[in-house]
Protein backbone atom coordinates (compact mmCIF):
# COMPACT_ATOMS: atom_id res chain seq x y z
CA UNK A 1 0.00 0.00 0.00
CA UNK A 2 2.72 2.44 0.99
CA UNK A 3 4.73 1.57 -2.12
CA UNK A 4 1.82 2.77 -4.27
CA UNK A 5 1.56 5.90 -2.15
CA UNK A 6 5.27 6.53 -2.69
CA UNK A 7 4.76 6.08 -6.43
CA UNK A 8 1.84 8.52 -6.17
CA UNK A 9 4.04 10.99 -4.29
CA UNK A 10 6.70 10.76 -6.98
CA UNK A 11 4.11 11.09 -9.70
CA UNK A 12 2.59 14.17 -8.08
CA UNK A 13 6.05 15.65 -7.50
CA UNK A 14 7.00 14.99 -11.11
CA UNK A 15 3.78 16.51 -12.43
CA UNK A 16 4.26 19.72 -10.42
CA UNK A 17 7.93 19.91 -11.34
CA UNK A 18 7.05 19.58 -15.02
CA UNK A 19 4.12 22.00 -14.93
CA UNK A 20 6.10 24.53 -12.93
CA UNK A 21 9.14 24.41 -15.20
CA UNK A 22 7.08 24.63 -18.38
CA UNK A 23 5.57 27.88 -17.08
CA UNK A 24 8.81 29.21 -15.61
CA UNK A 25 10.45 28.92 -19.03
CA UNK A 26 8.02 31.49 -20.40
CA UNK A 27 6.31 33.30 -17.53
CA UNK A 28 5.00 36.14 -19.70
CA UNK A 29 3.03 33.60 -21.74
CA UNK A 30 1.64 32.33 -18.45
CA UNK A 31 0.86 35.92 -17.48
CA UNK A 32 -1.14 36.37 -20.69
CA UNK A 33 -3.16 33.24 -19.90
CA UNK A 34 -3.73 34.42 -16.33
CA UNK A 35 -5.03 37.73 -17.64
CA UNK A 36 -7.80 35.92 -19.48
CA UNK A 37 -9.32 34.81 -16.18
CA UNK A 38 -9.89 38.48 -15.35
CA UNK A 39 -9.15 37.80 -11.68
CA UNK A 40 -7.76 41.21 -10.82
CA UNK A 41 -7.06 44.58 -12.41
CA UNK A 42 -3.87 44.99 -10.37
CA UNK A 43 -0.90 44.40 -12.64
CA UNK A 44 1.40 44.07 -9.60
CA UNK A 45 -0.70 41.22 -8.21
CA UNK A 46 -1.02 39.51 -11.57
CA UNK A 47 2.72 39.87 -12.24
CA UNK A 48 3.49 38.49 -8.78
CA UNK A 49 1.36 35.41 -9.43
CA UNK A 50 2.97 34.85 -12.82
CA UNK A 51 6.44 35.36 -11.36
CA UNK A 52 6.05 33.17 -8.29
CA UNK A 53 3.54 30.43 -9.03
CA UNK A 54 5.66 28.46 -11.54
CA UNK A 55 8.66 28.36 -9.20
CA UNK A 56 6.42 27.63 -6.24
CA UNK A 57 5.17 24.56 -8.07
CA UNK A 58 8.76 23.54 -8.78
CA UNK A 59 9.55 23.93 -5.07
CA UNK A 60 6.58 21.79 -4.03
CA UNK A 61 7.40 19.20 -6.69
CA UNK A 62 10.95 18.88 -5.38
CA UNK A 63 9.74 18.53 -1.78
CA UNK A 64 7.38 15.72 -2.79
CA UNK A 65 10.02 13.93 -4.82
CA UNK A 66 12.48 14.11 -1.94
CA UNK A 67 9.85 13.34 0.67
CA UNK A 68 10.28 16.48 2.78
CA UNK A 69 7.35 18.01 4.67
CA UNK A 70 5.03 15.81 2.63
CA UNK A 71 1.78 16.47 4.50
CA UNK A 72 2.35 20.21 4.72
CA UNK A 73 3.21 20.32 1.03
CA UNK A 74 0.13 18.25 0.19
CA UNK A 75 -2.05 20.67 2.16
CA UNK A 76 -0.51 23.66 0.40
CA UNK A 77 -1.12 22.06 -3.00
CA UNK A 78 -4.68 21.18 -2.08
CA UNK A 79 -5.34 24.79 -1.12
CA UNK A 80 -4.05 25.80 -4.55
CA UNK A 81 -5.65 23.03 -6.60
CA UNK A 82 -9.25 23.27 -5.42
CA UNK A 83 -9.88 26.99 -6.11
CA UNK A 84 -7.88 26.84 -9.33
CA UNK A 85 -10.02 23.96 -10.58
CA UNK A 86 -13.08 26.06 -9.74
CA UNK A 87 -11.72 29.00 -11.73
CA UNK A 88 -10.97 26.77 -14.73
CA UNK A 89 -14.47 25.29 -14.54
CA UNK A 90 -15.99 28.78 -14.43
CA UNK A 91 -14.01 29.90 -17.47
CA UNK A 92 -15.03 26.76 -19.34
CA UNK A 93 -18.68 27.58 -18.65
CA UNK A 94 -18.18 31.09 -20.04
CA UNK A 95 -16.51 29.72 -23.17
CA UNK A 96 -19.24 27.15 -23.59
CA UNK A 97 -21.88 29.87 -23.44
CA UNK A 98 -19.95 32.10 -25.85
CA UNK A 99 -19.28 29.33 -28.38
CA UNK A 100 -22.56 27.49 -27.91
CA UNK A 101 -20.96 24.06 -27.90
CA UNK A 102 -21.22 21.01 -25.61
CA UNK A 103 -19.31 21.45 -22.36
CA UNK A 104 -16.79 18.68 -23.07
CA UNK A 105 -16.04 20.20 -26.50
CA UNK A 106 -14.65 23.32 -24.84
CA UNK A 107 -10.91 23.40 -25.41
CA UNK A 108 -8.50 26.02 -24.14
CA UNK A 109 -5.13 26.58 -22.53
CA UNK A 110 -5.89 26.97 -18.84
CA UNK A 111 -2.35 28.07 -18.01
CA UNK A 112 -1.67 24.81 -16.21
CA UNK A 113 1.49 24.14 -18.17
CA UNK A 114 0.04 21.41 -20.34
CA UNK A 115 -1.12 23.51 -23.28
CA UNK A 116 -4.58 23.40 -24.87
CA UNK A 117 -6.79 20.65 -23.54
CA UNK A 118 -10.43 19.60 -23.61
CA UNK A 119 -12.07 20.76 -20.41
CA UNK A 120 -13.48 17.40 -19.31
CA UNK A 121 -10.06 15.82 -19.57
CA UNK A 122 -8.54 18.73 -17.66
CA UNK A 123 -11.10 18.50 -14.88
CA UNK A 124 -10.55 14.76 -14.62
CA UNK A 125 -6.80 15.29 -14.36
CA UNK A 126 -7.29 17.88 -11.65
CA UNK A 127 -9.65 15.58 -9.76
CA UNK A 128 -7.00 12.86 -9.81
CA UNK A 129 -4.38 15.31 -8.59
CA UNK A 130 -6.69 16.43 -5.78
CA UNK A 131 -7.35 12.82 -4.72
CA UNK A 132 -3.65 12.00 -4.82
CA UNK A 133 -2.84 15.08 -2.77
CA UNK A 134 -5.52 14.19 -0.22
CA UNK A 135 -4.09 10.65 0.01
CA UNK A 136 -0.68 12.07 0.89
CA UNK A 137 -2.22 14.56 3.29
CA UNK A 138 -3.65 11.81 5.47
CA UNK A 139 -0.17 10.40 5.94
CA UNK A 140 0.59 7.91 3.18
CA UNK A 141 3.82 7.69 1.19
CA UNK A 142 6.28 7.72 4.11
CA UNK A 143 8.78 5.28 2.63
CA UNK A 144 11.89 6.71 0.98
CA UNK A 145 11.27 10.09 2.50
CA UNK A 146 14.11 12.33 3.59
CA UNK A 147 11.99 13.98 6.28
CA UNK A 148 8.32 13.14 5.97
CA UNK A 149 7.37 15.40 8.89
CA UNK A 150 9.33 18.60 8.97
CA UNK A 151 8.13 19.34 12.49
CA UNK A 152 8.77 16.11 14.35
CA UNK A 153 6.78 15.36 17.48
CA UNK A 154 8.89 15.69 20.61
Amino acid at each position, binding site marked *: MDASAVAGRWLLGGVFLYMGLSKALDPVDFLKLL*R*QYDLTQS*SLLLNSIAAALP*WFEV*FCGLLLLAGIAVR*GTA*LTLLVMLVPFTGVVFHRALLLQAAQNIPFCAVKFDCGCGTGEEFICRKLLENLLLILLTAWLLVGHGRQWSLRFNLLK*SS
Partner: protein
Amino acid sequence: MKDNPTQSGAPDRLLAVGRVFLEAVLVAALGAAFAFAANQVSPKSVALTRDYFPTGTPHQVRPVANVAPPPVTGTNPAPISAADFAANFLAAQMKEKGLQLIDGRQALQYFHDPRFQQNKVVFVDARKEEEYQKGHIPEAYEFGPYHPDATVRSVCLQAEQVVVYCNGGDCDDSENSALMLRDVGIANQKLFVYGGGMTEWLANNLPVETGARNSGILLKTNTVSGTNALPNVNK
Protein backbone atom coordinates in the same frame (compact mmCIF):
# COMPACT_ATOMS: atom_id res chain seq x y z
CA MET B 1 6.23 10.67 31.12
CA LYS B 2 3.69 9.00 28.90
CA ASP B 3 -0.03 9.75 28.74
CA ASN B 4 -2.65 7.11 28.78
CA PRO B 5 -3.46 6.47 25.11
CA THR B 6 -7.19 6.48 25.69
CA GLN B 7 -6.99 9.92 27.30
CA SER B 8 -4.43 11.50 25.00
CA GLY B 9 -5.91 10.36 21.65
CA ALA B 10 -7.93 13.48 20.83
CA PRO B 11 -5.31 16.06 21.94
CA ASP B 12 -2.64 14.12 20.04
CA ARG B 13 -4.73 14.20 16.89
CA LEU B 14 -5.30 17.92 17.32
CA LEU B 15 -1.58 18.43 17.83
CA ALA B 16 -0.83 16.41 14.69
CA VAL B 17 -3.32 18.46 12.66
CA GLY B 18 -1.82 21.65 14.05
CA ARG B 19 1.63 20.45 13.03
CA VAL B 20 0.44 19.78 9.48
CA PHE B 21 -1.03 23.29 9.28
CA LEU B 22 2.16 24.81 10.63
CA GLU B 23 4.17 22.74 8.17
CA ALA B 24 1.96 23.97 5.33
CA VAL B 25 2.52 27.58 6.41
CA LEU B 26 6.28 26.96 6.49
CA VAL B 27 6.19 25.34 3.05
CA ALA B 28 4.18 28.26 1.71
CA ALA B 29 6.54 30.86 3.19
CA LEU B 30 9.74 29.09 2.11
CA GLY B 31 8.22 28.31 -1.28
CA ALA B 32 7.25 31.93 -1.83
CA ALA B 33 10.76 33.10 -0.88
CA PHE B 34 12.27 30.50 -3.22
CA ALA B 35 9.87 31.42 -6.01
CA PHE B 36 10.54 35.17 -5.95
CA ALA B 37 14.29 34.58 -5.67
CA ALA B 38 14.19 32.16 -8.62
CA ASN B 39 12.22 34.69 -10.66
CA GLN B 40 14.86 37.32 -9.92
CA VAL B 41 17.75 35.18 -11.15
CA SER B 42 15.91 33.59 -14.04
CA PRO B 43 16.93 34.87 -17.48
CA LYS B 44 13.21 34.99 -18.26
CA SER B 45 11.81 36.81 -15.29
CA VAL B 46 8.63 38.78 -14.82
CA ALA B 47 9.25 42.37 -13.73
CA LEU B 48 6.78 42.84 -10.91
CA THR B 49 6.16 46.55 -11.41
CA ARG B 50 6.03 46.58 -15.21
CA ASP B 51 2.66 46.98 -16.89
CA TYR B 52 2.78 44.30 -19.57
CA PHE B 53 -0.69 45.16 -20.81
CA PRO B 54 -1.13 48.90 -21.03
CA THR B 55 -4.14 48.26 -23.25
CA GLY B 56 -5.83 47.53 -19.94
CA THR B 57 -8.53 45.24 -21.21
CA PRO B 58 -8.19 41.46 -21.30
CA HIS B 59 -7.26 39.90 -24.58
CA GLN B 60 -10.20 40.33 -26.94
CA VAL B 61 -11.13 37.98 -29.71
CA ARG B 62 -10.98 39.79 -33.01
CA PRO B 63 -12.93 38.83 -36.05
CA VAL B 64 -10.68 37.32 -38.66
CA ALA B 65 -10.93 37.46 -42.40
CA ASN B 66 -12.62 34.07 -42.75
CA VAL B 67 -15.35 34.98 -40.27
CA ALA B 68 -18.55 36.16 -41.83
CA PRO B 69 -19.41 39.82 -41.29
CA PRO B 70 -22.78 40.82 -39.85
CA PRO B 71 -25.68 40.26 -42.24
CA VAL B 72 -26.81 43.09 -44.43
CA THR B 73 -29.97 44.68 -43.09
CA GLY B 74 -32.53 46.80 -44.88
CA THR B 75 -30.88 50.05 -43.89
CA ASN B 76 -27.37 48.84 -44.67
CA PRO B 77 -26.64 50.14 -48.17
CA ALA B 78 -23.82 47.84 -49.25
CA PRO B 79 -22.50 44.52 -47.99
CA ILE B 80 -19.12 44.58 -46.29
CA SER B 81 -16.54 41.86 -46.88
CA ALA B 82 -15.31 39.73 -43.98
CA ALA B 83 -11.77 41.04 -44.42
CA ASP B 84 -12.96 44.64 -44.35
CA PHE B 85 -15.12 43.91 -41.33
CA ALA B 86 -12.11 42.47 -39.46
CA ALA B 87 -9.91 45.39 -40.50
CA ASN B 88 -12.52 47.95 -39.45
CA PHE B 89 -13.01 46.25 -36.11
CA LEU B 90 -9.26 46.26 -35.46
CA ALA B 91 -8.88 49.87 -36.60
CA ALA B 92 -11.68 50.94 -34.25
CA GLN B 93 -10.00 49.13 -31.35
CA MET B 94 -6.70 50.88 -32.13
CA LYS B 95 -8.32 54.25 -32.50
CA GLU B 96 -9.91 53.81 -29.09
CA LYS B 97 -6.40 53.47 -27.67
CA GLY B 98 -5.04 56.37 -29.67
CA LEU B 99 -3.04 54.14 -32.03
CA GLN B 100 -2.90 54.12 -35.82
CA LEU B 101 -3.38 50.88 -37.66
CA ILE B 102 -1.62 50.27 -40.98
CA ASP B 103 -2.07 47.47 -43.48
CA GLY B 104 0.48 45.43 -45.40
CA ARG B 105 0.67 47.87 -48.26
CA GLN B 106 1.50 50.78 -45.97
CA ALA B 107 3.99 48.66 -44.03
CA LEU B 108 5.73 47.82 -47.30
CA GLN B 109 5.75 51.48 -48.27
CA TYR B 110 7.52 52.30 -45.03
CA PHE B 111 9.92 49.43 -45.64
CA HIS B 112 10.86 50.92 -49.00
CA ASP B 113 10.86 54.50 -47.74
CA PRO B 114 14.33 56.07 -48.27
CA ARG B 115 14.18 57.23 -44.65
CA PHE B 116 14.22 53.57 -43.60
CA GLN B 117 17.94 53.40 -44.45
CA GLN B 118 18.59 56.45 -42.28
CA ASN B 119 16.73 55.01 -39.29
CA LYS B 120 14.08 57.67 -39.65
CA VAL B 121 11.53 54.95 -40.28
CA VAL B 122 12.02 52.00 -37.94
CA PHE B 123 10.31 48.69 -37.46
CA VAL B 124 9.91 47.29 -33.94
CA ASP B 125 9.30 43.58 -33.42
CA ALA B 126 7.21 42.99 -30.29
CA ARG B 127 7.42 39.20 -30.35
CA LYS B 128 9.46 36.84 -28.19
CA GLU B 129 13.18 36.43 -28.72
CA GLU B 130 12.87 32.93 -30.22
CA GLU B 131 10.36 34.17 -32.78
CA TYR B 132 12.52 37.19 -33.59
CA GLN B 133 15.54 34.95 -34.10
CA LYS B 134 13.59 32.66 -36.42
CA GLY B 135 12.71 35.54 -38.67
CA HIS B 136 11.85 39.22 -38.53
CA ILE B 137 11.39 42.13 -40.90
CA PRO B 138 14.94 43.09 -41.94
CA GLU B 139 16.54 45.61 -39.58
CA ALA B 140 13.60 45.54 -37.18
CA TYR B 141 14.50 46.20 -33.56
CA GLU B 142 13.70 43.54 -31.00
CA PHE B 143 11.37 44.68 -28.25
CA GLY B 144 10.35 41.41 -26.61
CA PRO B 145 8.80 40.98 -23.18
CA TYR B 146 11.94 39.77 -21.39
CA HIS B 147 14.59 42.14 -22.61
CA PRO B 148 13.03 45.40 -23.68
CA ASP B 149 16.08 46.87 -25.33
CA ALA B 150 16.90 50.31 -23.92
CA THR B 151 18.32 51.36 -27.28
CA VAL B 152 14.89 50.94 -28.88
CA ARG B 153 13.62 53.95 -26.96
CA SER B 154 16.44 56.22 -28.13
CA VAL B 155 16.13 54.93 -31.71
CA CYS B 156 12.38 55.55 -31.66
CA LEU B 157 12.85 59.03 -30.22
CA GLN B 158 15.06 59.90 -33.19
CA ALA B 159 12.75 58.29 -35.76
CA GLU B 160 9.98 59.99 -37.65
CA GLN B 161 7.85 56.87 -38.00
CA VAL B 162 7.81 53.75 -35.84
CA VAL B 163 6.04 50.64 -37.08
CA VAL B 164 5.33 48.06 -34.37
CA TYR B 165 4.27 44.54 -35.25
CA CYS B 166 3.81 41.07 -33.77
CA ASN B 167 2.25 38.00 -35.38
CA GLY B 168 -1.03 39.60 -36.41
CA GLY B 169 -4.40 37.95 -35.85
CA ASP B 170 -5.23 37.64 -32.18
CA CYS B 171 -1.78 38.81 -31.08
CA ASP B 172 -1.95 42.07 -29.16
CA ASP B 173 1.74 42.39 -28.28
CA SER B 174 2.18 45.09 -30.92
CA GLU B 175 -0.55 47.23 -29.37
CA ASN B 176 0.87 46.75 -25.89
CA SER B 177 4.40 47.53 -27.04
CA ALA B 178 3.24 50.62 -28.94
CA LEU B 179 1.55 51.86 -25.78
CA MET B 180 4.68 51.10 -23.75
CA LEU B 181 6.72 53.14 -26.24
CA ARG B 182 4.21 55.93 -25.97
CA ASP B 183 4.51 55.80 -22.20
CA VAL B 184 8.28 56.28 -22.42
CA GLY B 185 7.91 59.40 -24.52
CA ILE B 186 7.46 58.37 -28.16
CA ALA B 187 4.92 60.70 -29.74
CA ASN B 188 1.58 59.16 -30.59
CA GLN B 189 1.56 60.42 -34.17
CA LYS B 190 4.81 58.55 -34.89
CA LEU B 191 3.47 55.20 -33.76
CA PHE B 192 1.88 52.77 -36.20
CA VAL B 193 0.70 49.24 -35.57
CA TYR B 194 1.05 46.86 -38.47
CA GLY B 195 -2.05 44.72 -37.90
CA GLY B 196 -1.24 41.86 -40.28
CA GLY B 197 2.15 41.46 -38.64
CA MET B 198 4.67 38.77 -39.39
CA THR B 199 2.07 36.28 -40.56
CA GLU B 200 0.95 38.55 -43.38
CA TRP B 201 4.53 39.59 -44.15
CA LEU B 202 5.53 35.94 -44.57
CA ALA B 203 2.40 35.10 -46.53
CA ASN B 204 3.37 37.79 -49.03
CA ASN B 205 6.87 36.36 -49.45
CA LEU B 206 8.51 39.54 -48.28
CA PRO B 207 12.14 39.59 -47.15
CA VAL B 208 12.85 38.09 -43.75
CA GLU B 209 16.04 38.41 -41.77
CA THR B 210 16.98 35.66 -39.32
CA GLY B 211 19.13 35.81 -36.21
CA ALA B 212 20.25 39.11 -34.79
CA ARG B 213 19.42 42.53 -36.24
CA ASN B 214 21.57 43.26 -39.29
CA SER B 215 22.77 39.65 -39.39
CA GLY B 216 22.45 39.92 -43.14
CA ILE B 217 20.90 36.47 -43.32
CA LEU B 218 17.81 36.86 -45.47
CA LEU B 219 15.31 34.10 -46.04
CA LYS B 220 13.66 35.86 -48.99
CA THR B 221 15.54 38.45 -50.94
CA ASN B 222 14.07 38.77 -54.37
CA THR B 223 10.38 38.12 -54.18
CA VAL B 224 9.16 41.57 -53.21
CA SER B 225 8.47 42.57 -56.76
CA GLY B 226 6.89 39.19 -57.42
CA THR B 227 4.24 39.44 -54.77
CA ASN B 228 0.68 39.65 -56.00
CA ALA B 229 -0.83 40.54 -52.68
CA LEU B 230 0.68 43.98 -52.29
CA PRO B 231 0.92 45.55 -55.72
CA ASN B 232 1.51 49.17 -56.70
CA VAL B 233 4.17 49.85 -54.13
CA ASN B 234 6.87 52.27 -55.15
CA LYS B 235 10.30 50.80 -54.70
